[in-house]
Structure formats: C-alpha cells, structure tokens
C-alpha cells in the first residue's frame, strides 16, 4: 500500500514537472532576476555590471517623468474602467433577453476583444485620419469643428484618443461577465416586486444593480489590472507623445529599458509596477474568496 502511494506520488511529480519547470523558467526566475537587476547598473546586454544598492530607486523618486507616467497610468485606469463598465453594463442589459438573435449580437459585440492590438491601432488611425477619416468627415459635416484635426496630435486631446480604443478593446469582457451574472438573478424577485407595486426604476436599482454589485467589483478590479499594465495600444498609437502627454508607466518602463538601453532602471520601474499589481491582486483574491465562501 505504501509503495503504491509513493509510486503515485512519483508519477504525480513526473506529470507536474514540465509545468513547474516552465513556470520557474519563464515566470519566477525572470521575475527574481528583475528584482536583482534593479539594484545594479546593467546597461542593455553588457555582461559587466555592478551592484549600486538603492540608487535606482532614489533616482526614481526624484524623476518627474516617473510621477507623470504613474499619474497617466492611473488616469487611464480610472477613466478606462469607468467607461468599460458603463458600456459593458449597458450592452449586457440590452442582451439580457431570451431570444434567438441574442447569440448573434453577443458574438458581434465580443469581436473587439479578440482583435490583435496592431489591428485595433490601424483601425483607429484610419478612423482618426484628419484628411480622409470618417470621424472628421462627420464632425465637419455637422459643423462641430471647422478645420480637420487629428485627435492624437493635439496634446489636450491625445489621451482621449488613446482612451477610446482602450475602452473599445476591454468592454466585451465586462459585457459577457455581467451578462452571465444577470442571467443568474432569480426571476421571481421581479414578480414579487411587481406585486408589491414597485416601479421599473425601483426594480432596476434595488434588484438588478444590487445583485450585480459583487460581479461589478470583481470585473472592475480585473479590468483595472489589465488597463494599468496595458502597453501595445498607447505605444503604437502615440508612443507617449505629444510632449509625454500619454506617457504611461508601462511605456516608460519600455522606453527606459529598450530605446534608452538602461535595463537596470527599467527593472526598478517594473518592481514599482509589480508592487501596485500585488495590491490590486490582493484586493481581487480577498473579494473572490469572500464571494466563494458566501456561496458555499
């Protein structure tokens, strides 16, 4: 009996080994390496470097661009999450019907989530184009603007130009997530409320929204994590410009590490981002854990 158990444990280890090796190789080791490198002065791929203690972190706290990038990251996260929640909730409510054509619309509305980021960027560049683009055409026709303008090239509006595709890529997840939650609401609650003479608005506020609340919080945190760390869109749309108006923390990490070749400083910035990520994740697991406990 005992040998059978140890035999089983051996096969277990054999089966899990590739996964564990991969996780250590491509996730845990690189992460630890990052933390170590953040205390050095490593430049790009040069083999020689020295440990310089906390210097990178001291430099970082005095770096105006770092604070600016951090501020922009939070700005994008807050507005992005709010936008995606609003749009996702609206669409989820519209789709919450038991008719045949719903699957078709849900499929269409889910598409932006599956698009490769480079395609999203090309699409919006074309949409924003100041000579031949559709947005300018509509705005000019309806006399909202007089001269063609490109939303991405003005320092006041560039961040909105990035925010729109960001929301556009991330709302479908909110939509399907909240739709699943909506469909699990007990229908008899509405019937009881109707008998009690509740208005449509009361029902929406007290039944629909209050049952959705836990799901909304969970999905908001997930979206916040993704948006806080998102890189492709802002890199390909504006590359931080004009005049650093759309520089986010992930973009700053990249710019420091690759074009500026200061890998060590880049990793120090990554560590700061990682700390924020841990805070988000702890919130997330707390909530998910509590939700699962209350369900059982």
């Amino acid at each position, binding site marked *: 009996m005992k040998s059978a158990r140890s035999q089983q444990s051996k096969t277990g*280890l054999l089966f*899990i080994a590739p996964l564990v090796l991969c996780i250590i190789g491509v996730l845990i*080791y690189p992460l630890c390496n990052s933390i170590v490198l953040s205390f050095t002065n490593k430049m790009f791929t040069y083999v020689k470097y020295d440990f310089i203690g906390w210097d990178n972190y001291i430099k970082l706290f005095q770096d105006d661009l770092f604070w600016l990038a951090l501020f922009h990251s939070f700005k994008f996260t807050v507005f992005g999450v709010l936008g995606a929640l609003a749009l996702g909730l609206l669409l989820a409510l519209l789709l919450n019907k038991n008719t045949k054509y719903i699957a078709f619309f849900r499929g269409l509305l*889910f598409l932006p989530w599956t698009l*490769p980021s480079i395609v999203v960027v*090309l699409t919006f560049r074309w*949409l924003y184009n100041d000579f031949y683009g559709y947005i300018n055409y509509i705005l000019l026709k309806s006399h909202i603007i007089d001269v063609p303008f490109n939303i991405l090239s003005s320092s006041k509006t560039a961040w909105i130009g990035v925010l729109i595709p960001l929301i556009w890529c991330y709302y479908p997840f909110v939509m399907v997530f909240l739709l699943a939650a909506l469909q699990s609401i007990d229908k008899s609650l509405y019937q009881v409320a109707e008998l009690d003479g509740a208005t449509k608005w009361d029902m929406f506020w007290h039944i629909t929204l209050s049952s959705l609340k836990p799901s909304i919080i969970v999905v908001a945190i997930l979206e916040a994590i993704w948006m806080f760390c998102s890189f492709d869109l802002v890199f390909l749309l504006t590359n931080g410009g004009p005049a650093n108006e759309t520089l986010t923390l992930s973009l700053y990490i990249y710019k420091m590490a690759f074009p500026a070749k200061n890998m060590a400083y880049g990793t120090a910035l990554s560590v700061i981002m990682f700390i924020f990520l841990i805070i988000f994740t702890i919130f997330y697991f707390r909530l998910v854990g509590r939700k699962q406990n209350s369900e059982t």
Partner: protein
Amino acid sequence: MKHKKPFWKTVLHFLVLCAVTFIVIFPLVITLFTSLKPPNEVITATPTLLPHDFTLENYIKLFKVRNFPQYMLNSLVVASFTAVLSLLISSLGACAIVWMKFPGKRVVINTVLAAYMFPQILLIIPLFIMCYCLNLIDTKFSLVLAYLSFSLPFSVWMLKTFFESIPKELMEAALMDGCSYWQALTKIILPISLSSITTVLIFSFVLGWSEYLFAVNLITTDANRTIAVGLQTLLGYYRTDFALLTAASITMSLPVFCLFVMVQKYFIKGLTVGAVKG
C-alpha cells in the same frame, strides 16, 4: 402570472440593439469596407460607408507585397507550436493537480492562479536578457517560450476546471483495469474533453498569432518576423495606403474571428473561471 410582452416592445428592443451594435462595431465595419474599396475611393474627402465598386485588388496586392506571406507563415509556425506545447504541458499538469498527490500541490495551484493576471510588460526585460544569454534572440523558439508564460496559466486553469467535473469513478475504474495514468489520460480523459482542448488550443494559437511586444523585441531579422510586426512595417512603408493597410488588418483578424466564433461559449466560460464559480 406570465404575460407576453407586446409585439412593438420586441421590435423596439431589436432596433435599439441593431443601432447600438452598429455604433459600437463601427470601426470594424469601416475597416472591412475600406479594404474592399478601390484605392481612389479610399482617398477622398467625402467617404462613403459602402464601396461603389467592390474589389479584391487590395488583397491581391497585399500578397505580392514584400514578405507578407512569409510573415504569415512565421506566425503560423509560432502560434501552432505554442498551442501544441501549451496543450501537452497543461493537460499533464492539470491531470496531476486533479487526480494525483504530490508535494507542494497547493503552491503550484496558487502560483498558476496568480500567473493568470501577470502582465507582459513586467516580463519583457528579464526574458529578453534570458534569451540573449541563451543565444535565442531572433529565433522562433524564443517567442514560443515567451508565449508559454501567458498561455499556460489559462490552459491549466481551463483544463483543471473541466477535469474536476468528470466523475472521479471514471479515472479510478481506468486505473483498476490496469491503465497507467498516461494511458488513462490519452485514451479516456482527453477524448471526452474535446471542448476544453479546442478552447486551450485556440486561446494559445491566437495569443501566438497576434502578440506584439515580444515579437518586436525578440525578433531582429525580417526572415523571422511575425505578422503583428509585419503589419507595423507595412504601416511604415505604406503610411497613406489605407486600402492596403485595412486589407492587411482584415487578413490578420479573419482567422482569429473564425476560431473565436467556434469556441465562443466555452471560451467565455474559461475567461470567467476563478472569478465566478462553475
């Protein structure tokens, strides 16, 4: 108790849904139609939604342009290897997590779940250095390696959830009959998990197909470039040829769309695991 909704309300709902859907996916609609327009209809101050003359000339031109077919082939290779490796490693891993005992199980499960939300930007610097040290820069293998760090957590979680729904007795009976774990997994468990397997394959494939950040940094020569970076190169050379660029966008997205439509239901379920139970 139940009363049927008036007909006009259903119609109204349908119309509102149509209008909202059209506005929301408007960017996609114009990308599709722009790619079907002849170039002289694209560069105009009064753009129309539908092309006057439908044409496929942009697509034909695209496949003659530079190395576009080569980029597609590279992406196909990278994405396929990512998908197959992910499936192999994650099915073994999920099998061990669900049915076997081994030391440190809790730690592995928690790490996989935490890795689920790990962003690319935090891994690009250390993975670049690692690939440089291992002399893997500018190889397709480096990309597969990098993509595994994102496809594995999803795949393991997806398969683990599915395996847990399979009755325990099935595995026990197979083992009683003298199957090894490997035989039980390949002959009994995997054949009944086709929906999850397809989802895992497609998720990993699409990740490898469309990823940009690693593809642009780990690959340095044109011969190994994948389609995401290839598209960006096109943007550099044909900055104003939006007919060609939109055709390239549609060509790149079409396989992704088709694959997602196939597994939409399972995929959405997989996405929300770890957040909503079941």
